[in-house]
């Protein structure tokens, strides 16, 4: 073995400080639940609202505020597809690929988006404006094919609508 005696390897001493407002908001969330781990999702959403994603350092920081292990926080953060553990663009486009949308023009819509943005699923445009992701249902079957940009759901979306639609998200 190469390690010498008495060496304790410190891999990381991450002391990421949460924004004070976020920390307050997380502590407030704690009141709503019997168990602190129940507030994990809300805490992660609070952090994601600030940074657009969940930076690595926030995981142990959230764990400290909640009083639970960082592994539990990371477990939740990586479980949900809409909690982002990698940086995303300024706007996140979710395109619905479930059955109604699939039957009503999802393929064309996706092709058009890919062509227009020059990115595929999980990628971000070079100007960091858009990230493209699939979503399994937006609950907007009456407006299929549907897509969502940030907090706004659109449908039915035809390929030719895209230009105008995307213009609204600089």
């Amino acid at each position, binding site marked *: *073995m190469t*390690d010498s*005696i*008495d*060496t*304790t*390897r410190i*891999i*990381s001493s*991450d002391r990421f400080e949460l924004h004070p407002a976020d920390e307050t908001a997380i502590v407030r969330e704690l009141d709503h639940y*019997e*168990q602190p781990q129940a507030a994990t999702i809300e805490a992660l959403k609070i952090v994601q609202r600030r940074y657009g994603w969940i930076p*690595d350092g926030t*995981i*142990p920081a959230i764990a400290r505020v909640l009083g*639970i*292990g*960082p*592994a*539990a*926080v*990371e*477990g939740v*953060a*990586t*479980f*949900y*597809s809409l909690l982002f553990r990698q940086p995303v663009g300024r706007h996140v486009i979710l395109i619905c690929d479930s059955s109604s949308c699939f039957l009503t023009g999802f393929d064309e819509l996706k092709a058009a988006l890919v062509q227009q943005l020059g990115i595929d699923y999980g990628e971000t445009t070079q100007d960091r404006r858009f990230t493209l992701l699939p979503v399994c249902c937006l609950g907007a079957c009456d407006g299929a094919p549907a897509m969502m940009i940030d907090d706004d759901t659109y449908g039915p979306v035809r390929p030719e609508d895209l230009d105008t639609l995307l213009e609204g998200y600089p």
Partner: protein
Amino acid sequence: MAIIHVDGQEYEVNGAHNLLQACLSLGLDIPYFCWHPAMGSVGACRQCAVRQYRDADDDKGMLVMSCMAPATDQTRISISDEEAQRFRASVVEWLMINHPHDCPVCEEGGHCHLQDVTVMTGHDRRRYRYRKRTRRNQYLGPFLAHEMNRCITCYRCVRFYNDYAGGTDLGVSGARDNLYFGRYEDGILESPFAGNLSEVCPTGVFTDQSHSDHYTRKWDLQFAPGICQHCSLGCNISPGERYGTIRRIENRYHGEVNGHFLCDRGRFGYGHVNRDDRPLVPLWRDQPDQPPISLDVNDALNRLTNALRHTRRIIGIGSPRASLESNHQLQALVGAENFSTGIDAGELSCLALMEKLQQTGGLATPTPRQIEQHDAILVLGEDPVQSAGRLGLHLRQAALARREILGGTIGVAAWNAEALKTLGQDKFHPLHIAWPAPTDLDDVAAGRYPLGPDGIAQLGFAVAHAIDPAAPAVPQLSSELHEIALRIADDLMGAERPLVISGGSLASRAVLQAAGSIAQALSRRAKAGGLLFIRREANSTGLGLMGGHSLNWALDELAKGHADGVIVLENDLYQRAHAARVDEALARAAVQVVLDHQSTDTTAKATFVLPAASFAEGSGTLVNLEGRAQRFFQVYDPTYMRPEARIHESWHWLHVIAARLRDEPATDINLDTVTQACANANPALAGIVEVAPGADYRIEGLRLAREPHRYSGRTAMGAHMTVSEPRPAQDRNTPFAFSMEGYSSFHRPRQQVPFAWAPGWNSPQAWNKFTDEINGHLKGGDPGVRLIYRTPKHRDYREPVSDPIPNGDGLRALILPRLFGGEELSARAHPIQQRITPPVLILHHRDGEDLGVSPGDQVLVNDYPASLTVQEQDDWPRGWTGLPAGLFPGLAVGDVIAVRLAQGGGA
């Protein structure tokens, strides 16, 4: 009891089990992954499918997961059903899709549960032709290697690490078929029980890193039933040897002590056996401070006996880390009046008190496994995880067992782990801990009370008074302590089986008396509870039973010149007494004989050093904290691979020396005769003869094999010395053979199992074949014999006492046990050394102000060389400082210490 029908056969099973458990208990094979005997069922892996029928007329039935189906009366199932078999084969095929074809280079190979189950289901052709996902592996510390590509996502690791052992830094990330089991970032796994993952993981994701550094397949290892030497709990271990070195320690199932798990000190602390600096041949120093000269055995014994003959009186200093047999031979050689236990006077008097309270305290001593059935626990002045490792896991299970009670009220079976976890959340059986520093059990504790020894004793006596008003009240009790005492008393009285745990860590007779008073009070109030005392070392209890003077007495006799010869048995006196004191005593003796398997500061002073056998090269008996005597057996013959070695059990050396001193030829002895002689000489130890079978024990006319059937390479392993294969070593002391020839099966009930193996079962899960039922006892009975019994009779209460206060004003020392670094032998093992955290001195911030030190300062204590980092704790008891065990030999709890800033430490 319930009757179930399996493939048309009728069986009687435990109706509280699930079908998987019941079938495995019957010896029937059903493949499984996520289920584990100690952790119950979650039904995640779908591997244990069987067909279940509604009744005798139902010929269609349906597939069920046997681990999630109760073994209720008249259940009808088929394991061999064709569809069930196909289903199980499919499940393995899916699980294997991403599993690499790396068995030949995988360290799990040969004791891999995944291999076993894959073979068992008949999945032997891979149809999947596509890319496998690959994962980055993490650095997890010196104990475990991580290879995530092999993961089959059974969740056992996180269920053990988090749910069972209370860890928080290992988790699972991702979702669906994209899962990652690891820390949230690289780093040392914090749990002191992390090493169990190497056995809990059904495949090679978590493997023993210490084993990896000198790897040998399980089938090529030589094993013997061992007893862990690193604390007083006496966990059963299977040490494995190859080429004359110990390669790994695996858990050896014991139904009443360690069950399926060990602590990391026990698992990774074996490195002291393999050290290069061990004495291998007798050494002699003509003059002190000269380099020693190697002697052959006869020459050494001649010179040694000549030298001893010229002494007026010989003092023998025994050791609580040596076997009863060796201590007995020393006692016999020097005479009881000249025999010291090698234990400090304060500790020795505590040991005697613990033994007495075990007999007369009014409550029985539970076995470690029985602790898990106690529904209210008070830990008085101990930090169990640090002082008795594995015991901490038992205590955690006791607290968690509330879930099973809650489950029972709504019909959730005890094996239904995930349901119970959801139901229980943070509802625990009450566990109260009186201990100044944070403990690893605080997360399941109802309260921890940061008091010094004086406060803890007061609290204890107050609890006794609160339980039984006939117990004397504590004068001048603070209202705060009174409140706490009432709360604890309520919990203990409200429980079916309350348990009081105390021990020697605070070296306080008052604390022990207080624990005894609580037990007495509970017993007078007709409570069936338990009382358990933690000792410091592997054979502390045994030496207490054997009796003898204290180490202080021995050093005094030598220093005063009352004796001019000393024989030290497997004991580094410099670990136990202040160096100046030992120097003075040893310098006055004309002859110092030291027997040890380690090179220590004491062997460095000796006229004669005799190379003793460690637990791996010799056999002997230890007594654990329950008073259970257990035998450990020689794993390998050290001369087989190193013919130059002259290592023998200390009891053998001492027997020959004694004979030579009497001018007699040494008679033939073996382990059995020494054990018998020890039992004859010490009535308290009479039971040790029955602890394990003698050398003439045979099963089906065979010795018991130390090596698995497939042991390979024996003809070649000595080829660098001679091309003729030497005769295998012969064993005169035990019923085991240094060979693969001999009995190694599970059909005949036996207690002493060197390694668990059964056809089709190469992994540690093979233990299920050796037990009477899952999680039960070994079919031949769990090893060991209790030597200490309770005498059921009420006794009068003692008035509350407090410890005598040593002279002087100032901060007083508390020695805090540490799992890593707090014990001499394991601290010589490289992986353990890497886990020793830098030493800290803990105090109250007001005491820090008075002393002029602040957190982070480097300070020195008295004249000891080690510097410590100052750490302040808000609720730390005033007037006390916490110091790590193992650094301050001779410093007693309660001693006033001088603290000064280390140079360059800053202030």
